Structure formats: C-alpha cells, structure tokens
C-alpha cells in the first residue's frame, strides 16, 4: 500500500459496449476518485449494471479503455486480472453467498484459497468482519436462515475479508426496507471514512444516492447525462436528468388518434 500521487484511481475513456449487435453503452467517459464514493445511477435498463461488469472485468468493452492505476483493464492478462481482483471487492445483489456453507465458512473462502493463514487467525478475522457489518455471532448460520438484509451484510463481510482497496456495490438497497437500507448506507460511509476505501455504487435509489455520494453519474439509455458532485447534478438543465431526479415517469402515451386507431381500426 503506497501513498503514490494518484489523481484518479479508475479512468474510463470513450467506452462502448454491445450485447451481440445491440449497442448498450455509448462513449462513456468518467473518473473515479480514490477514497471517495462514486454513485452511478439511472433507471432500470440504462446500462449501469453493464458498466459495472466492465469495471470489474467481467465483460470487455467493444471500444475504449478502462485504466486502473494507469494499467489498461482491457489488455490485462490472467495474472494481472487476478491481482486486480484481489484488491477489489464486489457485493452482488442478494449477497451471492454459497448455499452449502455457513456464514463463517463463506467469509473464510477467499482467505483459505489465497493465503496461508492459520485456522485460528481466519476464525478471528471472520469474527472481526462480522462485527464490522453488524452480524456478530452469526458465523454458524446457513444462508437460508438469514433475511435478505442479513444476507447482504454477510456477503459484505466476505467481500471485506481480504481488506480490499476498492469496493463495488450492485444495487445495495434492492429488496431492503428503508431502515435496513439506511443502515447499509451508514456502513458504506463508515468504510470510506475509517478505511479510506474507494467505493463505487450502482443504484436507482435516489435517497441512498444523495446520502452517500461524493460524485454522481446519471445515465440513461447507455449514455452519461450528467456527472459531478450531488449539488452540480441537482442543478443540471438536462430534461431527462430533471425527470429522473423528480421521479417523473416518462411520457409514453401516444396521440389520441393513434391510440384509437390501433383499438378500432381506421375510422
């Protein structure tokens, strides 16, 4: 862990990507600052989940570059990609816990595979992580015995097991009630302030986004509509951004005559 002069930790440059022949991301460019929380938001289908997949190397862009600490993610070989992944943590929706193991065994998986730490050390670390996410004492529970919110916290504990520098959250609030969601937001803020983690959150929940974001990126239909601090984004004059922030549904109603025509036929 060095204190090198980093201006941005992740830099996305002119990225396009496709699913087969359908273009889902258009000319995406932005930077993720270190030790800050960047929130990528937009309506369902705007391309934010795809963008997340690109950032963690699960999908390759069809055009453009993604620089992590100066190295281009697109050109990384297996070894470099593995090294990158050991520095990051990704929390998937639902927590992605392994169903055949207890919570404690789940958290220990990366430690057992990647390190030579003793069982006792791993056990203590598991307890430390569970305490950090508010699940102390749950190490012997099976995932099926946990509620949705608890599964996410357990998944987060596993993600934190290797003390990653960069965290990615995919829709952290999905399926959570407002109180649990706020608790998770506080945890994310704590991770930034106490550990200096760089955090990227993909979400469509406005309240959470404004509660935690240092930097916001608003997307729609595969493009970035606005980016900047929450205040800057709130001041955006882009119509779709204003619609999104005010939670106004898109006008999809057709003209009266068109509508009647499809119902009854030409009059």
């Amino acid at each position: 862990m060095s204190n090198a002069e980093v201006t941005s930790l992740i830099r996305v440059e002119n990225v396009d990507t496709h699913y087969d022949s359908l273009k889902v991301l258009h000319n995406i460019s932005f930077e993720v600052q270190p030790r800050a929380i960047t929130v990528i938001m937009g309506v369902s289908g705007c391309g934010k989940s795809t963008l997340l997949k690109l950032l963690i190397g699960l999908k390759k862009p069809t055009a453009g570059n993604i620089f992590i600490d100066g190295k281009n993610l697109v050109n990384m070989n297996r070894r470099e990609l593995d090294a990158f992944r050991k520095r990051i943590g990704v929390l998937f929706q639902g927590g992605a816990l392994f169903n055949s193991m207890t919570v404690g065994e789940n958290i220990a998986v990366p430690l057992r595979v990647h390190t030579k730490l003793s069982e006792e050390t791993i056990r203590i670390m598991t307890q430390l992580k569970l305490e950090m996410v508010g699940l102390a004492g749950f190490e012997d529970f099976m995932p099926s015995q946990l509620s949705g919110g608890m599964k996410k916290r357990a998944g987060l504990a596993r993600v934190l097991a290797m003390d990653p520098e960069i965290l990615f959250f995919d829709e952290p609030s999905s399926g959570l009630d407002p109180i649990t969601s706020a608790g998770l937001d506080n945890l994310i803020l704590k991770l930034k302030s106490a550990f200096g983690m760089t955090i990227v959150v993909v979400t469509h929940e406005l309240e959470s986004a404004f509660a935690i974001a240092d930097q916001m990126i608003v997307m729609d239909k595969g493009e970035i509509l606005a980016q900047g601090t929450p205040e800057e984004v709130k001041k955006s004059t882009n119509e779709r951004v204003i619609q999104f922030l005010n939670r106004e549904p898109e006008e999809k109603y057709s003209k009266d005559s068109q509508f009647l025509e499809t119902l009854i036929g030409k009059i």
Partner: protein
Amino acid sequence: MINVISALGKYGIDWVRELGSMGLFFYNAFLGIFKPPRKFYSTIKQVHFIGNKSLAVVSFTAAFSGMVLGLQGYYTLSKFGSEGLLGSAVALSLIRELGPVLTALMVTGRAGSAICAEIGIMRIEEQIEALECMAIDPYSYIIAPKVLGCIIAVPLLTAIFDIVGMIGGYAIGVGLMGVNPGAFIWGMKNSVLNQDVWMGVVKSFFFAILIIWICCYKGFWAGTRRGSFGAEGVSKATTEAVVLSSVMVLVGDYIVTSLML
C-alpha cells in the same frame, strides 16, 4: 420455403456453437483439475454426494435388473435346452452392458440432475461471478472436484450394480427356476473374460465423464441464454442435462461396444 431453410440454418449454427461452447468448457474444466486450490476434501465430498446418495437407487435397480435377467434368460435359454448357461448370460449381460449403462442412467437422474440444478442456482444467484471477482477460478473450485468425484464414484457404483445384479440373477435362476447352482456359478466364472471386465470398466469411465461434463455444463450456463432466465432457466437446463446425458450414454454405449468388440 426460405423460412424453413433459414430456420434449419439457424438451428445448425446454434448446434455448432453449443458444441464449441461445450468443448471450451471441457478444456477449462480439465485445466481446472490441475490448478490450485487443493481439492482433496472437496473431491471426497463429491464422491460422497454422487456415490453415497446414488447407492440405494443403484442397488435397488440392480437387484431387479438381475432378477429380470434371470427370468427372461431362463425363458429364452430353455427353448434351446441351454438353461445351464444362465450364469454366463446373466454375468456377461451385466458386466458388458447393463451394469455400466443402467448405473449411468440412474446416476444421471439422481446425482446429475441435482448437480446441474445446484450449479444452475449458483449461476442465477451470481455466485459464480462472485468467485471470479475474488480471483477464484470457478472451474477449479466448483467444477473440477465434481468431475473427479464422478470419475471415482461411477465405476465403483457400476461394480456394485454388477455384483447385486448377479446376486439377483442367481436368486431367480437357481432359487426360483431351479437351475443347478454349480452350473450357474461355473458358467459365470468360465465365460467372463478379462476383456469383458475391461469393456465394463472403460464404459463406466466414459459414461462418468459424459454425465458430469453435460450436467455441469448445462448448470454452469443456466439462465444465460436467450429465452430462459432465472429459475425457469435452471429448470430448463436440468431437463436438458438429464435428457442429453441419457441419450449420449446410449449412443456412447454403441460406439464403445463396436470399438472394443
């Protein structure tokens, strides 16, 4: 007419693509066997899951298969006055054909479908992506132990099937139909040669690889192809896996038999 041709063409292309995808999967799974992490305990767990859990079904099926062989064999052989050959007939049928094939089919239904569903659920819950993001190779961590476990368990189960089947055949042939016990056993000992046992062993290994390859592959990509997402994708994948495995076992049976005769 053009529509029919283009539909056929699409079907053909999809089939080739699927074949290529399966080949790639086999390659990655094979490499995964030799990559870290260490798999000793997870392999043992899989041998337990596939072997132990299929034991009851295999034994039960074997007993009745052997018994039917005893009945039908006696009926057929008695037409030529060759009841004394019942022992040979039962043993050879089981060791060369019925043992490997029926064991494979039972394991496919019992363990193969369960494994496919298990991996399929992992896929739709993003557990496989989670592994990749932890720099853990899913082929090495999840698939390889299952492959090794199946290759160890299925031949052992086949051997058990053979033995239980022969006991069943003896019970019916000697106990019910009155064949001379000495003749039965002598027939068995004399007509079963090394090459017969080899054929059974080769088939059981071959079928083990086929079953685990197809079931793991279908589960691994469950819910990711167009038209079948989420839980429906897992159910579809499991059905496809069982059907394809069963068919390929029978096709493979013909191929191995003709190659080894």
